[in-house]
């Protein structure tokens, strides 16, 4: 089977889109802090999550590097055989679609909650999907080019949001540390790893890298950078909001609302919202692209571009009907969604590595016999 997409992406672009896709949920709906009972420990859980996420990212990348020029959908078929491989491919595809559905709904909800309550959520979601499909149609190269720029913009906006409310920060809010035992740390680590499980998309990106040998390095960088951004977010949020930090639906949005410098540099939360919108757009474009390429490769189609708008429509519809309310979405993201993502990533890795091990063992025995 041939690679459907002609473009090539650089290592830096690869890293950028990975960071963007990890920090999209951070930029507003920081579900880590929403799922922790005592917020003072949030930054520790982020560090723990990041440390665990590094081997996950490395495992996914290394696996893909063994099959140059093939996406995870393709090599899972060649490793596990057509039937099992297709089943696993469907699982991965379902995971991609779920992610798209979550973030679409998340963005719509944020707009309706925070900025324009009277507008139907469908408007935001369908326009977002439309623009993401447009980007995805232009190909991976365009998504990644823009992704790199969005990465710089988002990092800049995030750092501003962390630093500028310094007048409202009280760092003693961060104490005490680790006073509630390990049980306090588990839910946010799971939520965090749930998001990192979305790094399965590395399996779709590695074949298009112009220098695949750098992939592992950049994947690790991506985990570290996103981890650092989240640690800072946790620190800034707790310093400003204290124990109330976990009560905000959109913590970073509320954090940006606290910025007030010299009576005129204030009210910049819309900028945060804009940065969040474009990063969500990039992430959505990436996942829709991955999903449509996956569909094309699963069902041996020649082109993936025609699949984009149908997939987008399905995503909008699903994100409307999957979740009854924002409460449900948040609950899902922090608990069930995270567990499912971890499960899918775990099963995928386990199956593929097991198959790979068996293959190699057989191969070696054959080699030894021959």
């Amino acid at each position, binding site marked *: 089977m041939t690679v459907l997409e002609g473009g090539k992406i650089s290592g830096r672009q690869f890293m950028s889109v990975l960071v963007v896709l990890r920090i999209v949920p951070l930029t507003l709906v920081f579900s880590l802090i929403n799922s922790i009972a005592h917020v003072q420990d949030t930054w520790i859980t982020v560090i723990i999550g990041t440390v665990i996420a590094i081997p996950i990212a490395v495992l996914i990348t290394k696996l893909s590097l063994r099959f140059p020029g093939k996406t995870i959908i393709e090599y899972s078929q060649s490793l596990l055989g057509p039937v099992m491989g297709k089943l696993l491919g469907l699982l991965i595809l379902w995971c991609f679609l779920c992610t798209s559905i979550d973030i679409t709904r998340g963005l719509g909800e944020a707009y309706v909650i925070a*900025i*324009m309550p009277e507008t139907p959520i469908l408007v935001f979601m369908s326009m977002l999907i439309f623009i993401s499909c447009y980007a995805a149609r232009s190909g991976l190269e365009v998504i990644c*080019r*823009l992704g790199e*720029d969005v990465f710089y913009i988002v990092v800049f906006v995030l750092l501003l949001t962390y630093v500028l409310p310094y007048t409202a920060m009280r760092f003693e809010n961060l104490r005490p540390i680790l006073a509630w035992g390990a049980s306090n740390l588990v839910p946010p680590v799971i939520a965090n790893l749930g998001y990192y499980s979305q790094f399965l998309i590395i399996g779709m990106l590695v074949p298009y890298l112009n220098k695949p040998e750098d992939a592992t390095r950049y994947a690790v960088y991506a985990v570290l950078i996103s981890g650092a951004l989240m640690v800072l977010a946790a620190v800034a949020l707790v310093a400003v909001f204290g124990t109330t930090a976990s009560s905000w639906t959109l913590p970073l949005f509320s954090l940006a609302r606290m910025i007030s410098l010299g009576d005129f540099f204030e009210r910049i939360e819309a900028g945060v*919202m*804009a940065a969040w*919108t474009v990063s969500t757009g990039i992430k959505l474009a990436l996942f829709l692209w991955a999903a449509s390429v996956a569909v094309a490769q699963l069902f041996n189609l020649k082109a993936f571009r025609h699949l984009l708008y149908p997939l987008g429509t399905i995503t909008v519809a699903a994100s409307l009907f999957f979740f009854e309310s924002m409460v449900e979405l948040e609950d899902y993201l922090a608990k069930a969604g995270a567990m499912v993502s971890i499960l899918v990533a775990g099963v995928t890795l386990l199956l593929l590595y097991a198959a790979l091990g068996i293959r190699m063992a057989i191969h070696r025995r054959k080699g030894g016999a021959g």
Partner: protein
Amino acid sequence: MLSKALRRLLSRQRTDVAGKGQCASSPDAVLSKRLRENEALIRDAFGNSPDLIVREIRFGVSPGIAVLVVHIDGLVNTALVSEGIIKPIGIISEILESERLPLAQVQDMLKNRLILLSDAKQVSDKAGFLNDIAAGKCGIIVDGSSEAFVCDVRGFEKRGVEEPQSEVVIRGSREGFSETLRVNTSLLRRRIRDPRLWIEEFTVGRVSHTQVAITYIKGIADDKVVQEVRDRITRIDVDSIQESGELEEYIEDEPLSPFPTILRTERPDRVAGALFEGRIAILTDGTPFVLIAPATFLMFLTSPEDYYERFFIASAVRLLRFVSFFIALLLPALYVAVTTFHQEMLPTSLVLAIAAQREGVPFPAVFEALLMEVAFEILREAAVRLPKIYGPAISIVGVLILGEAAVRAGLVSSAMIIVVALTAIASFVTPIFSLSIAVRLLRFPIILLAGTLGLFGVVFGMSGAAIHLSSLRSFGVPFLEPIAPVVLSDLKDALIRLPWWAMDTRPKFTGENDPRRESRGLMPAVPNPQADGTLGAKGKKGPR
């Protein structure tokens, strides 16, 4: 059949192999051996036009051989024709006893000794001969031969080299291209005095036979891109090309984009600069506007002056230009979005001031913005097209009626007037007009989006534009390079300009053949007095 005709019409000649034009072999395509038939043919072809001059002279002592000199009045330099052709044939041949000379010898004599012009070539192709006459060359036909001479004696009224009107600089060359292709190539040759400046000429247009030249620096420009340009130009099959803008529409990568992907300029220094970056210039006869391809988005926001002024200032000015670009694109939309959707974004005193101004304005802010923008566009268009004498009238009407009276009457708010005025001025900052009209056009849908969905609409519109722009390519070069994709080495000459001694590499996508443009370590340094003790000592003792 069609393709044959096409190929003939697009007969391509390269200057370095000029004169080796292939002869057509079919009998009706070549000139006749009889002079009368040829004369009739020519007169017929031009419809016996009054400016067609067909002069018959006799070669050698009477009766001699009849020679026909054909040219178009007004296109040729008459003095040159009489000095270089008629005089030698008429007078000098008188002395020669050429009556009995064989035809071949006569022709040889004509070509090599008698026609005292630098450029003369032999043709027998009927259509080619007629086209040459129409292009302003002088044709000479000898009785009994189907071979004719064509000499370049073109001399017509043309505009001289003047200061470019559309790209003004304070510091830098005052030369601008003119309408004549040869003048324009000479301007380039004078700036790049190296044989590696290659010029290739094409004739485009079935009827207009417009000359189009592509120039590039051999060895720097990518041969594949040159071939691509060549291919795109040769496949054009139209009646006429009058301006490089027409040409542009036939050769650009994304014909349906509002953004131009080929840069046009009338400044030779700009073209020369682009050639040194490995780009290709396309010169069209009849227009001072030269096309540069591949072009990137940032090139449209730079002025040649950026490279002549000190780099701090140039960088600051460039940043200012980016800011004005975004003001021109977004300000009205942001105003609409903020005043109708996101009042929380403005400081309280400002929001109250705007609210007070809008008190009693009958239109919603979106409509007000659209109205004023359209009014301004009308004003601008009128100011451009109007004879200069009417200029003051337009400004009085514009200022007094549209500005002052509209605010007084409460039709628009004065904040909106300020926004529109700032937008208008910002749009004039863009150095290349073709980009600034694209921005003007895009402003309207973005205002509409802002009026329906506020900032989300603006972000939506801008994302759409960004996706579109980053999917564009100009002759293989990503249009948004070096911003998307980020190319670190090219950021030296992007949003800011580093000093010349630091910009040591050519742009990555166009200058790959010869990446370095200067040697390293050119940053000037003051001689160190410690190392060279005499310098410091001399300076001190000097006056005594």
